[in-house]
Every structure is written in structure tokens, then in C-alpha cells.
């Protein structure tokens, strides 16, 4: 009787009890862990703090996009790892998108063979653990490449060897002017496009924006080459003999096999998921839409560009965002083949040297959280832009 009364009259109180219990339980667990951590760290004579980031790291990193050696700080090593993670994720996302779109469209091809090949590509690469694919490329496939002295040459400007892929290095003069001109071109294209949209919506006039944009993008940077003193030369890799049996390439840029294996495996694995998203998106646009578009006299390209793709993209983008996020997180598998990403450099070497488990693991996890959240914020913004605008 009492319980029933309590139930009806004090809904607020009834709601409060489970919440209070959960919060208290969570708090007590956190406090329990925190006190233990404090005691443990006290026993080992280390204090919590991030001051170690300024100390000298005194370890080398095999591949770095910014200047780095052992005399730099742990903070700088963290930055090197972060940049390497971003590099491999960006390469992976680029190739995964291209492969995924091609395979996804191929699965819908009316050519039976192409559709079947695409289907088997998806079934094979999706059902093998990513880490095994990375191991396969790194330990088995890339190890079968020739030694530097008889590397596979591409027109003598680029060489593929067991030690990596040597490509020409770009040497710019007045790179800043070039960069500014590219930015200016993009701003101009933005204005041209918004003008074209206005013209189309107000007067129904079609302006060929694609061609105009492309011309702008090529023409403006080209002008800087002609008149503003920008120039580009290449430094080609050249075979050099170190000792009677040891050869290497000097000059150029070396793309390390770890990066190749990781980017290859990440993009081929993620492409299968993107392909499925693309397929679902295109299938998700009703047949009636295409027929309606055809009946108002749009041609095949216009139907694809103006009717099918905008609707398909709406279905494709959200799950594909998730795949981009997954790829970024999966790039942490780099640690398995010693590609110096943030996990290997920071949560591996730096952690081993300093012993600051709590700080370093927290920083690493926070970094990934930030990366994940920033990609998802960007994609939500894009998604909102593409979403149905109901009137």
C-alpha cells in the first residue's frame, strides 16, 4: 500500500532514486580508481603531470613529415606521430573512396561478369581481418620486391624496391605565391558557382560551371608560372653504391613500405564497406524518380547529375562518414608493422621511456576522440547541406 502511494504521488522521487544510485556507483568507481592510481604512483615516485612533454625525447623516428631527431621534445614526437596518422588516413580515405565508388557501381552493372567480380571483391576483402591484410602486404607481398640495384623502374624517374618506393621530389621556388593563387582560384570558383546557382534559380539559365571552374583552377596557377616567378623542378632518385653489395637511392622522396602496406590494406578493406554504401544509395533512389526525370525531358547525364546523385548521396554520406572514421581509427594498426603513427611513437616508444602510462594513454585516446569528433562534425555539416529542405 505504502509503496503504491509512493509510486503515484512521487514520480519525481521515483525517477530520482535509480539516477542517484547510478551516479553514486559511477562516482565511487572513479574515486576508487583515482585513489589507487595516486597510491601506485606515489609508491613508484612519479607524479601526475604533463611536464614531460617538454623533455628531450632522445629516440629517432624512421619517417617524419616535419623536421625531427632525437634532440627534439616528446611533444614534437607526438606531433610527428599525429601527422603520420593523418597522412596515412588521408591517403587511405582518398583511395578507398575511389575504389569503393567504382566497385559499388560495378556491382550494379548490367554486365554479369563485372557485377560478379565486384561482388567477390567485396566478399573476399570484407571477410578477412584487416590486420591480416596488413601483415600480408607488408610481410609477404612487399617483401617479394627486388633489391634497390634491380628495382622496378618507371621510366627511370621512380623506382619500386623492397626498401620502399622512390619518387621524384618537388622543388618549388616561390611556393607561397603558387599556394595563394590556388586559394584565390578556389575563392573565385565559389563565387562563380553561387552566381550560376542564382542565375539558374531566377532565370532558368544554365551556365557550364564545371568547365569554367576547371579552367579557372588550371589557368590562374599557370599564370603564376609565367609571370610571377614560380617554378617547379624535380629531383630524381639516383642509384648509389654504398659498398660492393649495398645499394641505395639518393635524392627524391622515399615512401617507406610500411606506409604503402598500410595505405593499401586500409583502402582495399574500407573500399568494400563504401562499395556497399554506394550500392545501397543508388538502389535507394526509386525507379519512379528516374522515370519522372526522363518524362520531363532530361537526358541521361542530367538525370544522373540532377536527380539520382543528389538523392543517392543523401543515403550514402552518413554511413560513409562512419567508414572514414573507422579507417582513421584502424590506421592505429600501424603499430603492428612499425609504421611510426601516434600509437607506435607515443603510446609505444614514449610510454616505454617515460613510464607515464596514464598521461600518455589519455592523450592518445583524446587525440583519437578529437579526430573522430571533428570528422563527424564536418560530415554532419555536409549532410545537413545535402539533406531534404522541406518547405
Amino acid at each position, binding site marked *: 500500500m505504502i509503496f503504491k502511494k509512493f509510486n503515484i504521488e512521487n514520480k519525481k522521487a521515483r*525517477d530520482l532514486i*535509480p*539516477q*542517484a544510485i*547510478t*551516479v553514486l556507483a*559511477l562516482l565511487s568507481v572513479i574515486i576508487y*580508481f583515482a585513489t*589507487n*592510481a595516486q*597510491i*601506485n*604512483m606515489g*609508491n613508484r615516485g612519479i607524479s601526475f603531470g604533463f611536464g614531460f612533454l617538454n623533455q628531450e625525447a632522445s629516440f629517432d623516428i624512421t619517417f617524419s613529415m616535419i623536421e625531427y631527431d632525437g634532440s627534439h621534445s616528446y611533444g614534437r614526437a607526438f606531433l610527428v606521430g599525429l601527422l603520420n596518422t593523418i597522412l596515412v588516413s588521408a591517403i587511405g580515405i582518398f583511395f578507398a573512396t575511389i575504389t569503393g565508388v567504382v566497385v559499388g557501381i560495378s556491382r550494379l*552493372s*548490367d*554486365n*554479369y*561478369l*563485372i557485377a560478379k*567480380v565486384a561482388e567477390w571483391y567485396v*566478399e*573476399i576483402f*570484407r*571477410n*578477412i*581481418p*584487416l*590486420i*591480416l*591484410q596488413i*601483415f*600480408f602486404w607488408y*610481410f*609477404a*607481398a612487399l*617483401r*617479394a620486391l627486388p633489391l634497390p640495384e634491380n628495382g622496378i623502374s618507371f621510366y627511370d624517374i621512380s623506382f619500386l624496391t623492397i626498401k620502399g618506393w622512390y619518387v621524384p621530389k618537388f622543388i618549388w621556388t616561390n611556393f607561397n605565391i603558387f599556394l595563394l593563387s590556388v586559394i584565390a582560384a578556389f575563392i573565385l570558383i565559389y563565387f562563380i558557382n553561387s552566381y550560376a546557382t542564382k542565375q539558374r534559380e531566377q532565370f532558368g539559365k544554365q551556365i557550364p560551371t564545371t568547365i569554367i571552374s576547371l579552367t579557372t583552377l588550371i589557368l590562374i596557377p599557370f599564370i603564376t608560372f609565367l609571370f610571377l616567378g614560380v617554378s617547379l623542378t624535380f629531383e630524381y632518385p639516383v642509384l648509389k653504391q654504398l659498398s660492393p653489395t649495398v645499394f641505395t637511392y639518393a635524392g627524391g622522396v622515399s615512401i617507406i613500405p610500411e606506409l604503402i602496406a598500410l595505405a593499401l590494406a586500409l583502402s582495399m578493406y574500407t573500399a568494400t564497406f563504401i562499395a556497399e554504401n554506394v550500392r545501397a544509395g543508388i538502389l535507394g533512389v526509386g525507379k519512379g524518380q528516374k522515370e519522372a526525370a526522363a518524362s520531363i525531358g532530361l537526358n541521361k547525364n542530367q538525370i544522373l547529375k540532377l536527380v539520382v546523385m543528389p538523392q543517392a548521396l543523401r543515403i550514402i554520406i552518413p554511413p560513409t562518414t562512419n567508414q572514414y572514421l573507422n579507417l582513421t*581509427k*584502424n590506421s*592505429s*594498426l600501424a*603499430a*603492428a608493422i612499425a609504421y611510426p603513427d601516434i*600509437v607506435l611513437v607515443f*603510446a609505444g616508444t614514449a*610510454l616505454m621511456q617515460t613510464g607515464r*602510462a*596514464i598521461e600518455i*594513454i589519455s592523450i*592518445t*585516446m583524446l587525440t*583519437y*576522440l578529437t579526430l*573522430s*569528433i571533428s570528422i563527424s562534425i564536418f560530415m554532419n555539416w555536409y549532410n545537413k547541406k545535402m539533406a531534404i529542405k522541406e518547405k
Partner: protein
Amino acid sequence: MNLIVKPSKENIKTFVPIGLSLVFLSFFDVFLNAFFNLNLMAFLPPQLSYFLPLILGLIGFYLIRIEFSGVRSLDILNKNINSNNFNALLTLFTIFIIIKSIPPMLDWFILEANFVGNSKDDCTGDGACWVFIKVWFNRFMYGLYPDAEQWRINTAFLILFAVVGVSFFVSEKLKKYFILFLVFVFPFLGIKLISGGSFGLEYVESAAWGGLSLTFIISAFAILFCFPIGVILALGRRSSLPAIRYISIGFIELWRGVPLITVLFMSAVMFPMFLPDGTFIDKLIRVLIAITLFEAAYMAEVVRGGLQALPKGQYEAAKSLGMGYWRMNALIILPQALKLVIPGIANTLLALVKDTPLIFVVGLMELAGMIGLAKTNPKWLGMAMEGYVFAGLVFWIICYAMSRYSQNLEKKLSTER
């Protein structure tokens, strides 16, 4: 008079035989080239003889492309692989690549491969050295588990398969007990059998476990625990109580935002710092907790999708029958919601199985880890290809079977009419 006659129904009798023989000739040329290294067209200039099969095939396909020919098989062929020139080109490329890739694959896998022997020296051919897999097979399956005790792992898995097998044939009423046994009794029985330490069984520490059996053990336990936790988190995220909702959201998003490898790192190096000095939790258990919590967050999002997809009327109907929160969820909402998201659940479980090799970061070695160990053995250097192809095949079979099973289950449970 038209010099170029378009293939049509009138001239079908002349065009189809010519076209088919041209297509056949082009395939035959590639086939001879790939399998016997013969070049039929060697008398032609090299550039021409290289592209000749392609040209012949394209002409052949053009000649047999007759709309509404009245010959059923020809129409099906044209519709599926030969609807226009571009499609014909794609078809030719696909078939050429398949023909070209058969001989090297066949050589590596079977013809040039070595199957007999028990050391690396027995591998004399150019192909794969399957001796490597044969010699290490025991290790790949059981890890460093002592040979004399391996019957315990076998027994545990045999019991599992037997119970699952029998449960398919018993009545619905008995089936319930079988499932209860499998979920609540067997896991602990099995783990006791494998780890030993009592009933006269020798204790085998978890560091010695490994190979494919460890993959199965970790997957099974993680699936078992992550499912209920995921459901509770999903319900929590949709709860009307703010504190519970926000805690669930925070928990889910935290795990979903970080890679599993950092979670495993955390369980290995950071988690011990959070425990009272001197307490020690087994490595395997720490890893299991990490994987379970990680996958539970993903499971929660999948289940939430199902909960959101249910119409409001279902909740209202359950409430109007006087059901409380738990009874409503257990009897009305969850059965429908879970059925809706079977593909999502299957994908999460698949991801879990595919994630198990990551436990190498804490030093546990399942199948992929054991191959890493075997290929660095000085007596067996250079066997990476065989090892990873084998492991890839094993994982592929497991994952493909799982995804097929989930598709069947989805069809079976579908109540849509």
C-alpha cells in the same frame, strides 16, 4: 549498297557462327599463351599480336550482338555480357585476366607446391611450402598449450558442438534448457576444463593459450557478455532519466571514438595502475573486459537503431496493458527491435571476430600471432606468404559462414507478409 552490314535477324545465320568463332579464337589464343606459353599469332608484328585477341573478341562480340534474335541463349548472352561495345570490352578484359591469372595461382597453390616432408629443406619447388603449415598446424590451433593436455580443448569444443547440434533436433521446451545451459553453465565449465587447476587437471596458465582456439574462446566470451551490456546501454541511451541517459551517451561515444588498439594498450599498461597495489588480474581477463566493453558500445548503437525504428504505438499498447518498463521491454519491444537489426548485430559480431588478432599488443597470440611467431623461427624464415594466406583463408571461412548464417536467420525470422 551498305558496305558495313549491321548484324540483324536476317543475316543471323552467317554472322553468329563467324562472331562466335572469333570470340572463341580470341579466348583460345589467350588460353594457349597463359597455359602453354605459345603464341599462335607469332608471325604478326609484336604490337599487333599482343592486342589481337582483344580486337578479335570485340569484332566477334559486335557480330553476335543481334537484338531480338529469337535464339534464347543468344539473347541472354547479349543481355548479360554484351549489351554494348563498352560492356563487351569489360567482359573481354575480365575473362582475359581470369585466364591469365589461373596458371600462376595454380602453380603456386598446387603444382609447384610442396606437401610432403617435415623441414624447410623439403620445400624444393617454386610454389608454396605447405609443409610449413603442416608442421606448425598444432601450434596454429592450440598455441603453446602443452601437447598432452590438448584433449581438454578438444573436449570443450566437442561438447559445445554436440550441445548445439542436439539442440537443433529437440522440442521447443527442451531447447530452452539447452540454451540456458549454453549461456550460463557451459562457458564456465569449458573455461575450467581448459584452464584446469582442479579435479586433477593440470593448471595451464593463460599465457600458454593461443592459436585458433584462443580466437574462438575470446570471441565466444566477448559475444556472450557484450550483447546484454549493449542492450542495457541502448535502453539507457533512450531512457527518460537524464543522468542515466547522459552516462550511457558518454560511455558509448567514448568507446566508439577510440581505436581498439588503444583500449587494449590501456588494459595492458594503464589499468593495473588503477588497481590496489599487489592485485593482479590475468592478462586474458583484462583483454576480454576491454574487447567486451568496446564491442558493447557498438552493439548499443545497433540496438538503438532497432528501438528507434519501432512505432510509438508498440510502446503505448504495452503500457495500456499495464506492463511496467522492464516487462514492456523484455516482452514487447526488444524481441521486435532485435529482429529488425539482425544484420547490424551480425556485422558487429563479425567485427568482433575480426578484431581478435589485435590481442597481439598485449602479447597474447591467437592464429595471426602464432604465424608471426612461426615465421620468425630461424628454421622457417621466408614463410610469411604461406602463413598469412592460410590464416586469411581460415578467417575468411569463419566470417563468410557467419555472414551467410545471419542472412538466413534474417529470412527465417522475417514476419513480413
